[in-house]
């Protein structure tokens, strides 16, 4: 069986400045992978290259054995890819439920429908409430995004991606800015993501993130420095070098 994600010698520069220096990486189906690295290591750039928000300069990106590096972001979404954003990227004027509806529409043919009113597709509204229930936000379904708390927006970020029923989910700092209680709840939510979904996560909070991940990749200046299990990463002197600058 082919890997969920396979990157081969992926490169990207911004105006001559290399941001991704030939990254090769393999994530198996069902795996939980954590990507760490200091600021500016290229973690979010890596995500943007995988989703197609940025075009790669060279190298290959394979999703479940299919080369996708020439596909547009929405075409990659149709191949089972979903992501969340480090900076909250929701539809602020709309209700939580409508946010989820937009997510549900993305992969359905009915998104091209121009005559029947959206409000009359009751099954979609129903499913959106179902998704919100799963992440514990059902009681806020009618509220506009602008009126809910930061922690709730973070949860909705993940709910949007989960509503797509992805095969590969990229989480970009899902714990950023959360209080300790909220972190515990978020950890629980991520822990409950079914095993059919492969998860790749960027996170700075090691205490929480290390528990969720099976394998860890350390990124530095756009290159993979170390890759391995938790114990291997901690034991490797290169990790310390990257983080402490010895």
């Amino acid at each position, binding site marked *: 069986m082919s890997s969920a994600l396979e990157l081969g010698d992926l490169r990207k520069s911004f105006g001559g400045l290399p941001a991704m220096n030939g990254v090769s990486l393999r994530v198996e189906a069902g795996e939980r992978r954590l990507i760490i690295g200091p600021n500016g290591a290229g973690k979010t750039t890596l995500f943007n290259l995988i*989703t*197609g*928000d940025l075009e790669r300069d060279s190298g290959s990106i394979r999703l479940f054995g299919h080369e996708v590096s020439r596909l*547009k*972001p*929405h075409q990659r*979404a*149709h191949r089972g890819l*979903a*992501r969340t*954003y480090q900076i909250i*990227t*929701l*539809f*602020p*004027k*709309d209700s939580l439920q*409508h946010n989820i*509806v*937009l*997510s549900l*529409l*993305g*992969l359905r043919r*009915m*998104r*091209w*429908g*121009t*005559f*029947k*009113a*959206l*409000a009359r*597709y009751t099954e979609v509204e129903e499913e959106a409430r179902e998704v919100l229930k799963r992440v514990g936000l059902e009681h806020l379904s009618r509220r506009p995004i602008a009126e809910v708390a930061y922690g709730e927006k973070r949860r909705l970020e993940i709910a*949007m991606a989960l509503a*797509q029923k992805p095969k590969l989910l990229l989480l970009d700092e899902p714990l950023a800015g959360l209080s300790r209680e909220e972190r515990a709840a978020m950890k629980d939510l991520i822990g409950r993501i079914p095993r059919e979904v492969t998860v790749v996560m960027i996170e700075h909070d090691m205490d929480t993130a290390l528990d969720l991940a099976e394998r860890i990749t350390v990124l530095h200046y756009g290159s993979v420095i170390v890759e391995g299990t938790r114990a291997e990463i901690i034991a490797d002197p290169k990790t310390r070098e990257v983080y402490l600058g010895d």
Partner: protein
Amino acid sequence: MKWARWALLAVALAAFPWIAGEYYINLTSQIFIAATFAASLNLLVGYGGLPSLGHASWLGLAAYLSAWMSLKLGLGHALTAPAALLGTTLVACAFGWISLRATGLGFLMITLALSQVLWGTAYRWVSVTDGDNGLRGLTRPAPFGISLDGATSFYYFALAVTVVAITLMAMFVASPFGAALRGTRDQPRRMSALGHDVWTVRWITFVYSAFWGAVSGLLFVYYNKYIHPASLSITSSAEALLGVIAGGSGTLAGPIVGAAIIMLLKNYVSAYIERWNMLMGFVFVLIVIFMPEGVVPGVRRLYLRLRKWRTG
């Protein structure tokens, strides 16, 4: 309650020619045409977040195509109307493809440039357009044998077309596609990550908006029985954009109210004040100061505040 208000509006519009004089009937017909035109632009500006300064292209092109086919080819209205709509829509397919290489200011400039090309062509291609003289001697159609030459019959014709146009545009906005369109306005990156084809959504909207612009162009040329390059000018595009913004972009009633304000200022006030353009500018400054979101959302906000204040 809601349908009672609609019924009242319908009765008022239907009864209007019975109580008003010819001048006001004609003025209202022109408001209908301007409202359809502004509403079509609103799909792009208000719901798609794509400000265009070239929307006059669609009104002007449809009007010119229809006029040219009937004058120079001698074709009847039953043929020229669908042909003009089709031709305009096809040109919009190409213009949209070019303009949507950019968004925001870039999009605004490309739409402006392309419409200037059409405007210049209308001025210079004298053998086809009669240049600055415009195309004259046109007739109004007579659907089902009913002559539209009278003010009242044309009023009902324009009203019917406008109601159909606005209803179909309202349905478009309320549909899943309309929701996706608003999504591409607010968060295009997230939309593509969710599987929405942002470019195609915008392009379809561009073409659809141009189609209704073309419909208003037909009404325009039927009403005036004359078409001049000025209808393709940036002034004509800007007027519609002002109407959308003044009335309230991204609302259904906004462009209708905005178009009505402009038409009233242009036709009614200009009869009394020569410098009506100055007055129009003044009115817009007032709108921007007191209701920056537009008249329709602004009045709604003031009404809600008043009600709150009354109930304590």
